């Protein structure tokens, strides 16, 4: 574990209180993903939005560049595969990924 981003104990707020709203946005759950990522085949996608609704880490959001579709964010996707399991059209499947590509451009577009 690298110590980047760590706080010396004397600098912690009283009782670890957090005064900054929305700090969990910085929480890189994508770091948990191991060796594979979900990829959406937009030929099969029916724009139902189920992946957007059921993703526990909000890794899918409406794609501003392709109306009705959802784009994937590797910073939050922890690779649980629930989207793959739940997609009614089997449009999402695993794709091997290299560690160095982890935070590369969102795939599946």
């Amino acid at each position, binding site marked *: 574990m690298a110590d980047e981003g*760590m706080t010396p104990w004397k600098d912690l707020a*009283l*009782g670890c209180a*957090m005064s900054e*709203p929305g700090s969990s946005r910085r929480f890189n759950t994508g770091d948990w993903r191991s060796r594979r990522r979900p990829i959406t085949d937009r030929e099969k996608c029916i724009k139902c939005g189920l992946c957007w609704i059921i993703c526990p880490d909000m890794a899918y959001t409406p794609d501003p560049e392709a109306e009705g579709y959802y784009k994937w964010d590797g910073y939050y996707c922890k690779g649980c595969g629930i989207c793959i399991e739940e997609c009614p059209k089997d449009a999402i499947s695993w794709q091997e990924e290299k560690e160095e590509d982890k935070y590369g451009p969102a795939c599946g577009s």
Partner: protein
Amino acid sequence: MGRRVGLEVSLACAEAVKLCNADVIAAYPITPQTHIVEHLAELVAEGHLDAEFVPVESEHSAMSACVGSAAAGARTFTSTSSQGLALMHEILFITSSLRLPIVMAVANRSLSAPISIWNDHSDIMAERDIGWVQTFAENGQEVLDLMIHAFKVGEDPRVNLPVAVNMDGFILTHVIEPMVMPDQAEVDAYLPPYKPSQWLNPAQPISLGMVGVPEVYTEAKKANLVALEDSYPAIVEHWEGFAKAFGRSYQPIESHRTDGADTLFVTMGSLGETCMSAVDQMREDGRSVGQVRIRLWRPFPVDDFLAAIKGAKNLIVLDRALCPGILAGPVATELRALLYAKGVRPFVANFVAGLGGRDVTRTDFVAMLDKAEQAAADGQEITCQMVGVKE
């Protein structure tokens, strides 16, 4: 300058909470704490104390309600005993970790099974590591005084920690004792209105009780550890302030006739008074014996303790609870570890006495001294020896 009253100690404890102007009381009744919260409910219902009394459905809820109340910046009190304290267990750690200065009176009682409503220290000894300041009272006056001191210490911006005041169930809580009840003006001067260091304030929003990932948990615990250690100067300072304001002085470790004594009893709580009386008698009989009493249990006053026992050849450490599987009571286990680390090597005899309300008499103390002196002379160990157990 206060008035002399005869009062049941539980009621005195409740009166202390009233004198301290608690804002919120959340509690669930359990013997032998019941009279404390019953009296507070009365004081609130009759308009003598302007506070919210939250009658919750369990002790787990009581402490949870207290967490919310203290986080909102209210002066908060609760009280419990035995199984009730055990049911609070998981919330007790949260309270100290969030640095919420709740005050709790613990009417010490044994834990089941078998079911026992009577006194020992099993309940609080199972909660040694909750990160609270913990004090022990020996009599009614001390209960009253330590309660007022508890609010003063906990709310000190250098401390911001919860404080538990321990009082032996029945032996103290249900006994009518003479005591000096301070005036409201005296208490107001000693304990001004609570100014929380931070609270759930919509104008300056904060979140409390967040997740601590591995990158921060260790640092958070380090901060908690240091906070409790660093509360010591404030605890002592506020006892000094108490002595100036009320004329009664308290020390983290109290000594009784330790001068030149070969053997010292180490006691906590009400057992201390019986022991003191036994020590006086034994001194008259020419025995070389004295006594130290642990008033401040957390943070443990290491230097005060070492100073108090300096020169003693033997210590007789009394435990009113068990540590099954290690064959020494909790107090003896800790003191032996401390003495070893400090390179101080008196002979330490450990007796367990007064479990589940069993009386401990002056004669028992004489017998303990006889046994300890003999064992020290013979090089024999005494540990976890149960006083008066029927073989």
